């Protein structure tokens, strides 16, 4: 076959360009350390790289979530530990108040110490995180969860529990609501809560206050029903004065003997073994609710102990004092158990976090290896490839020079 001179030159130039391009590609691979620099280098590998990098980023994020969760749980654990300490101390004080003969002064001293423990406990229950979130307020993290107004303890949080994503489809709770730990504590027997209806005339500011259980059996029989106290029009009273009717919550049936009772401010009203007072100037239509419950919050229990120690004389009110002691000790034990349960559960969650973290680290390592296999360059291979390609380039250059010198014209 004839070969034209321009062809000889063109071939040599083409092959030099081609090899130079290969040398350059190899050089880019070596300098980036990667085998796949653009999708066409390995289309399937490129798609895997995108997915593997996503996998890695997710694992890293999960571990970051676990770190954050762990910090929050450790903080809660520490607080609960302190709460247990306070409850133990109150229990000791109560036992010492009940043992042997104590003078009124002794009891007052003990009451004073329990009072300060009470405040400590309330502070612990209102603990805030470094970012200013209340630990035990549920979702209402900017709202102080527990307020104490006289003997009235109110929970302002909700039942929300924040969770953190620790793995695909796996979340771990990092908060506990104050209600579940401190409010839902079993009392020794049925007790009751009182509340004014939110729609009541705000100017009248009538209040309802609990005076405690007067007949334990009657309350137990009435439980779980509740009472609604509604102020009726003046015309319904025989005397034309402010009057109220007490109804059962379940079916609205008026309680016998409590229909259109004339209102006396701050006088004890006793229904179904429960005693309470209403004060202020309730308006017609104002309503108050009394709800029986078997739960009593831990602050009310401690507060009951303080009041009992200050007001009850073990000699004169022996029965009431005994009952107060029994109520308090049972309430404290139940509260401690409740905190303990929460601690055990918390420990379980911390364990989960730890094992999940280890799993992520293992998987992260594996993913990293796979990613490296897919994406990264075998440097030794690439360097020897570069050496070979440079060698070929030199050979082509030399042969071109040699061949181009061959011309018949040189011999003419």
């Amino acid at each position: 076959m004839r070969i034209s001179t321009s062809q000889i030159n063109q071939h040599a130039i083409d092959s030099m360009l081609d090899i130079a391009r290969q040398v350059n590609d190899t050089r880019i691979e070596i300098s980036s350390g990667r085998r796949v620099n653009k999708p066409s280098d390995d289309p399937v590998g490129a798609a895997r790289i995108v997915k593997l990098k996503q996998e890695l980023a997710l694992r890293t994020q999960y571990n970051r979530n676990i770190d954050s969760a762990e910090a929050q749980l450790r903080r809660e654990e520490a607080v609960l530990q302190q709460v247990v300490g306070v409850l133990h101390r109150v229990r000791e004080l109560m036992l010492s108040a009940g043992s042997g003969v104590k003078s009124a002064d002794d009891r007052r001293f003990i009451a004073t110490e329990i009072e300060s423990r009470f405040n400590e406990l309330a502070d612990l229950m209102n603990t805030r995180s470094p970012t200013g979130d209340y630990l035990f307020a549920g979702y209402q993290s900017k709202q102080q969860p527990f307020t104490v107004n006289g003997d009235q303890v109110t929970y302002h949080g909700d039942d929300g529990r924040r969770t953190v994503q620790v793995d695909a489809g796996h979340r771990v709770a990092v908060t506990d609501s104050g209600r579940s730990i401190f409010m839902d504590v079993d009392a020794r027997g049925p007790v009751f809560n009182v509340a004014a209806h939110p729609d009541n005339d705000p100017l009248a500011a009538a209040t309802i206050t609990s005076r405690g259980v007067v007949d334990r059996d009657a309350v137990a029989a009435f439980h779980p029903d509740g009472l609604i106290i509604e102020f009726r029009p003046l015309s319904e009273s025989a005397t034309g004065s402010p009057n109220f009717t007490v109804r059962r919550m379940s079916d609205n049936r008026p309680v016998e003997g409590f229909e259109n009772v004339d209102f006396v401010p701050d006088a004890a009203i006793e229904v179904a073994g429960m005693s309470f007072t209403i004060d202020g100037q309730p308006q017609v239509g104002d309503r108050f609710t009394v709800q029986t419950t078997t739960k009593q919050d831990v602050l009310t229990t401690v507060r009951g102990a303080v009041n009992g120690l200050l007001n009850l004389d073990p000699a004169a009110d022996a029965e009431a004092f005994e009952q107060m002691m029994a109520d308090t000790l049972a309430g404290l034990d139940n509260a401690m158990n409740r905190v303990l349960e929460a601690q055990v559960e918390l420990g379980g969650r911390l364990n989960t976090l730890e094992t999940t973290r280890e799993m992520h680290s293992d998987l992260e390592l594996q993913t990293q290896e796979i990613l490296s296999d897919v994406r990264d360059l075998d440097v030794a291979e690439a360097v020897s490839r570069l050496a070979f390609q440079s060698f070929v380039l030199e050979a082509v250059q030399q042969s071109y020079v040699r061949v181009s010198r061959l011309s018949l014209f040189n011999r003419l």
Partner: protein
Amino acid sequence: MADLFNIGLAGLRAQQAALAVTGHNITNAETPGYSRQRVELAPQVAGSQGGSFLGSGVRIAQVARLSDGFAVAQVRMDTSLFAELSTFHSQIGQIEGLLLNDNSGLDEALKGFFNAIQQASNDPSDSASRQMVLSEAERLSGRFQTLHRRFEEQRDSVANVVSTALVRVNELTVGIAELNTRIAGLQDTANGSGALNHMLDQRDEMLRELAKYVNVKVTEQPDGQVNVFIGKGQSIVLGGQSAELQQTPQGHVALRIDGQREPTRITEFLTGGEIGGALRFRDQVLDPAADQLGRLAFAVSMEVNRLHAGGVDQRGERGGDVFADLNAPELARGRAVADENNSGAPGVMSLTVDDPRQVPISDYELVFDRSGSGAFFIRRGSDGAVVSKGQLAGPLPQQVQFDHMTLTLESGDFRPGDVYHLQPLRGAAGAMDRVLDDPSLLALAGPLRTAESPTNLGTGTLELGEVFDPDHPLFGDDAAPPPLLVRFITPTRYEILDNSDPADPRPLDPPLSNLPYTPGQQNSLLPGPGATVVRFDGAQAGQLGSVTTEATLGGSPNGYPGQTFMVTQRDPATGEVLGQQSLTIDADSSARTIAAQLSTLRGVSATAETELSLSDLVDDGTGDGVGIAINGIDLGNVGSLNELADAINANDALTALGIQASSDGGTLRLRALNGDDLTVQVSGSAGDGVTVHDLDGNAVTLSSSGAGYETVTVGGVVSAWLTADAELSSPTSALMAADPEHRRADLGFQLFLTGRPEAGDSFTVEHNASGIGDNRNGLRLAELLSQPLLGQPPRSLIDDYANLVQSVGVLASQAEISRDAAGAMLEQSTNRRESVAGVNLDEEAANLIRFEQAYNAASQIISVARDTFNTLLSAVR
């Protein structure tokens, strides 16, 4: 003697010419398109001399051009292919690098955004991590925009390649036509062969260059002219005539033929060459990639916005848009482009994407029928399928739905034959924009929170399910629904009430009461998405029957008519009927029986409840009370409604039937939770009586005559709960209307309850105001990244992007391989052409020597002739 001189001279002339042609070859060795030439010699034959013919030397037969027409055509074809593939490869090389680059790829930004949401969810009250979410959202939309911009630049570059090529193509066709004319003129004249060779070379070279721009078909005519065709046989050179190619404003290539008013559009027929490569890149790589990116933008913005709207922000308000609405009117209007050949003025229409997860990646065409009847159809570009047919009807606007999109024809003059190009996804990535600008407006909290009543005796735990419709009327404008109360009537029956006044919870509208609960497993408490309820409120339903005097205890029929019910199931998207079932119920059936039978039909679960109230219990004054029996069970003589209520609730037989009474002294409310008929019978002394009321406000007083039982029966009311795809109807109107009102029953969210609640247990669901520590919606948003979302089978956002990277990568690597193969083929065919037409300098050098020797030899002939002549002269002298 003179002959020998002449022979010598002819030899000199011939060898001189040969030397000249060799020189010409040598000097043109590097001239593109040059075909080497060769002097072809032939003996000169003279007349006879003494009976034998003597040759009279040599003559130049022709200067031959060594060219192989087949090889030239092959080079042309391979040039087209190689130019196409290398243009395709160089174009794709410019975008593929972007996709896998950490600084421009979408995956990094997607991860960044969703991880920022997780980080913010870890500590939802931390404003710094909330701000981070917004910054990452900005970065994500920036990435979308950058990629989109680069794609648009690439589109411009394609248009540029095409228009530059077209300019040169037009020059070449003019040149070829001109050469054609000159070649045809020279063909006859014998002495023009040198010039002809040159022109043929020139024309071949022009044709080769033309092939570099676009694939051409060349046919040679007997007179030496060539005709050139492109596409599907459209001629661009016909003898001495050439046609002009131009690019229309919408990027089409059109051929202008003299005498034709409109240029003919030939874009889709063009293959090969730079133009073919650039157009193929645009159609096969750039447009699908831009569409897929657009679909990702749609999916991210619509899904994030949808979930975000299901949450509440730090101010307790419903989440607003995080990303700009990609279906905004000005964007939706830009997606339909009137074809430039339309006869009517461009109409206004908007195209909105309803579900980006299902939209196919394709262009569409809206074509108005040529018949002029106003009929139109929509064709999907990817497979040519007609996805919708319609008819212009009445005044605009008119809506057409197809492939999870909605096209609204707003205004315009739609003429027969008009075409509109629909590009639903093309520009979406460029319009991606973050619009949420205040970190506190990030809705990380869930919209609702649940609480268990502290007085609950059972073990039920309530959990909030998905909020599937944040636009439900219950939520109102500010996403603050009224508090709801879930209350258990019995351990297996519950009701949902509006708890705005906790002392007096009210039924919802339509009421969700007396619903069945299965203890010990997870129950969905609320109707599912799209569920409806039909309440049987026709004649007699729930109303007092006639009063009869019976001799014994027992019931009287409720007087309900019989009726046939039909349930039709339809596909919610298309309305297509999937199935139909019917059921006939006998007259006088109790609501309980009707509900049980209806519940056997697909898509229906029916409940029944009977309720009446008693008042005005009148004792005739003897003080022995009034004798009352309920459903045939004698409850003895009672003195008050309270006493009666207690007696009913204490009766095991009645309780087992699900019959409950509650009395506040003035009114006794009697309910049969299973929907059994309720029969009230009064006996006792004459004058004893009680008034019975039904729910419709009818009342009747049963007054004992002193003998027998005054009896009245009230039937129950059936509520049929229907799934979203079911519809209830009847051929007649009786207990239920023939075409009853289907009221929306779902509340836009779901509740799950597990465990074993007791009667009286209650749970509350309320607006999550100031739920600053709540991150439920944040977690839901973060999950979006790995959820299967797009296409069929569904891929996650990242997987869809990986798929884009892979498909572009595959095309790019294929392009590289094919380009190299085409390069090798071009080299082969060039070699072949060169082997015939190329100049080899060694060969020419040898020829120089050869012809020089021949020249010298010829001059020796002259020398010999001179010697011979001199010899002859000296002999004479």
